[in-house]
């Protein structure tokens, strides 16, 4: 029992949401917002591992999500829509098992590409790395656009809607736990050392290239998982969902939450996803009940304004570099 409090908090959260959804307080609309928030948690926490913990600068995070979405989406679509795999007995393994294996396969594919990209490009620093990752994200998008087998610019359609709250929650929980454990391990310490001063880390005997590539591939793995979950939530994967703007959105979550703080990333993912919907409801309410005619386009104005205010008054992000107590490993006292 390494994380008693964190486990309890997660279990309570899960049970509360399930209960509220069963009795009908939380309808499908709230569930989709919660599911989206949890997918953003995975994306933000995994990008935080690359940008906040290892101190690299990746701008192509959604490129990895695209790999996960397309790989897992293609696998499940093939298995459940075409007759051939039925003959091979694959579909009889049970939808859940196949789905989870497909999601993990998507993550693994993203991690593999992350490794390939990371190995040569992580010798670069700062701006140069940002440009390489930005370019990578665009390359993925362009490749996907040009493969007709997976829908090309029309997108991969008809992916079975397997993502539900339980699966997404389980993956989000595992992501936070695994990344948290990594940070607390000697590997994580090496990554933090690279962030603080790469030259000093190198001189202290840290194999900087190895840890940078490890961090990058791990982040890519979880981004791939998130991409797969998203594709199975909305039943399609479209190249425009994984562009530079979306990558920047994840970067915003990491900065708004606080670089290097997993708690911050989790909170920012929930707050900013809910904020859009709350603003939508407020405008509906102003329009309908109060009678002030305001266009829906104002949600984006207020959203941007709130982000600016956060950055002005809390430039280090909501959590700064700190973690919530329940996420901190208990120290062994001698």
């Amino acid at each position, binding site marked *: 029992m390494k994380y008693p409090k964190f486990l309890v908090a997660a279990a309570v959260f899960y049970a509360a949401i399930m209960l509220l959804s069963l009795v009908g307080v939380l309808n499908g609309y709230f569930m989709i917002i919660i599911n989206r928030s949890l997918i953003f948690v995975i994306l933000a926490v995994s990008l935080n591992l690359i940008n906040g913990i290892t101190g690299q600068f990746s701008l192509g995070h959604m490129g990895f999500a695209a790999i996960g979405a397309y790989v897992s989406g293609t696998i499940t679509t093939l298995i459940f829509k075409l007759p051939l795999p039925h003959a091979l007995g694959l579909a009889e393994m049970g939808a859940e098992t196949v789905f989870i294996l497909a999601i993990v396969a998507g993550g693994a594919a993203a991690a593999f590409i992350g490794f390939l990209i990371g190995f040569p490009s992580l010798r670069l620093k700062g701006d140069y790395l940002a440009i390489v990752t930005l370019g990578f994200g665009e390359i993925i998008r362009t490749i996907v656009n040009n493969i007709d087998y997976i829908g090309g*610019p029309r997108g991969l359609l008809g992916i079975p809607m397997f993502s539900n709250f339980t699966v997404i929650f389980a993956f989000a929980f595992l992501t936070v736990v695994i990344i948290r454990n990594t940070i607390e391990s000697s590997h994580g310490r090496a990554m933090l050392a690279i962030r603080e001063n790469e030259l000093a880390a190198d001189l202290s005997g840290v194999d900087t290239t190895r840890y940078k590539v490890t961090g990058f591939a791990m982040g890519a793995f979880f981004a791939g998982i998130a991409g797969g979950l998203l594709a199975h939530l909305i039943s399609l994967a479209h190249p*425009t*969902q994984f562009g530079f703007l979306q990558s920047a959105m994840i970067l915003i979550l990491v900065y708004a939450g606080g670089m290097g703080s997993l708690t911050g990333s989790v909170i920012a993912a929930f707050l900013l996803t809910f904020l859009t919907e709350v603003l939508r*409801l407020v405008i509906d*309410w102003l329009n309908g009940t109060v009678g002030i005619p305001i266009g829906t*386009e104002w*949600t984006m104005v207020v959203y941007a304004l709130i982000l600016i205010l956060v950055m002005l008054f809390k430039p280090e992000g*909501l959590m700064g570099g700190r973690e919530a107590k329940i996420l901190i490993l208990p120290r062994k006292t001698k």
Partner: protein
Amino acid sequence: MKVYAKIAAIGAMVLGLAACSSGPKEILIGGVGPVTGAAATFGVSTKNAYEMAIAEWNAKGGVLGKQIKLDFADDKGDPTEGATVYTKLIQQDKVVAIVGTVMSKVSLAGAPICQAAGIPMISPTSTNPKVTQVGDYIFRACFIDPFQGTVGAQFSYNTLNAKKAGVLFDNGNDYDKGLAEYFQAEYTKLGGTVVDYEGYSTGATDFKAQLTKIVAQKPDVLYSPNYYQDDALIAKQARELGFKGPIVGGDGWDSPDLVKIGGSAVENCYFTNHYSKDDTRPIVQDFVKKYQAKYGEVPDALAALGYDAMNIMLDAIKRAGKTDGASIRDALKATDLAVVSGQVKFDANRDPIKSAVVIAIQNGQQVYKTTVNP
């Protein structure tokens, strides 16, 4: 603990607002469109048209003795956002039907949600054939990509008498690619030769490399089924390279900016469209006049189709006599209504059977050229 208090406060707000709903004296219709994001101008025209159609019905006493209320949601042109707002309209606001949305990729995210909930949906402008294939609750008010590409080919081969065609399209965009593919298929079937079939990547502004190659093959016609910014630049650069023949496109050409960017280069150009403002049918003239009076601009095809989609839906509810999903769906299937973009009936795939118009650019003006029937 401050953060937890904030989360709790926001949660309470959301739940509090959730309690608000409209009274039983109204019929709530969901409307979806991208009023922010890259396709914002499309969304604004569409939203205007929804509102105008509803205001007209309400002035005539509403439907089934009740007033219609539009519950509009912005999808930002993003599929994930689309899935969210479709779920919101159905589960949270409990609309009886949804009119929307503009972009195919977003409609494709919304359609499975409507189908699962048994809520009828009609998209004004999603041209991807897959949208209505999602299920029997999904309809559309526009013709599909294959039809427009086919009409473009027939017009080029038969009316313009062009035997050799060059095709240049954005291969990062499903709309452009769909039209180009179906143009090529039909044109070849008719006996014409596609001398060059070239793609470019989204966002390009210099098309001279591809155009030089195309012009060297001496085509009689150039097919450019892209959005107007690209088309105008393609026309300009093709003229600079000495291409004098006609250029043909699709409804992506329909924008006042086409002539502003293209200038004299877009003369001798034609495009297929959903309606023409010069159509003399009274329903069209009436719509153009009212839209201009209300919003101060000539309605584009998106406005016309948004208006049509809303009218088709409200007409179906009126004929159904009830507001449950299955009744509205059955009434929609039996639609036979004269709307701005023609006489609409649905085929077995719930796609409308209707004609396309061809518009020519003459002296910087859009001029109605001909109507092509399917």
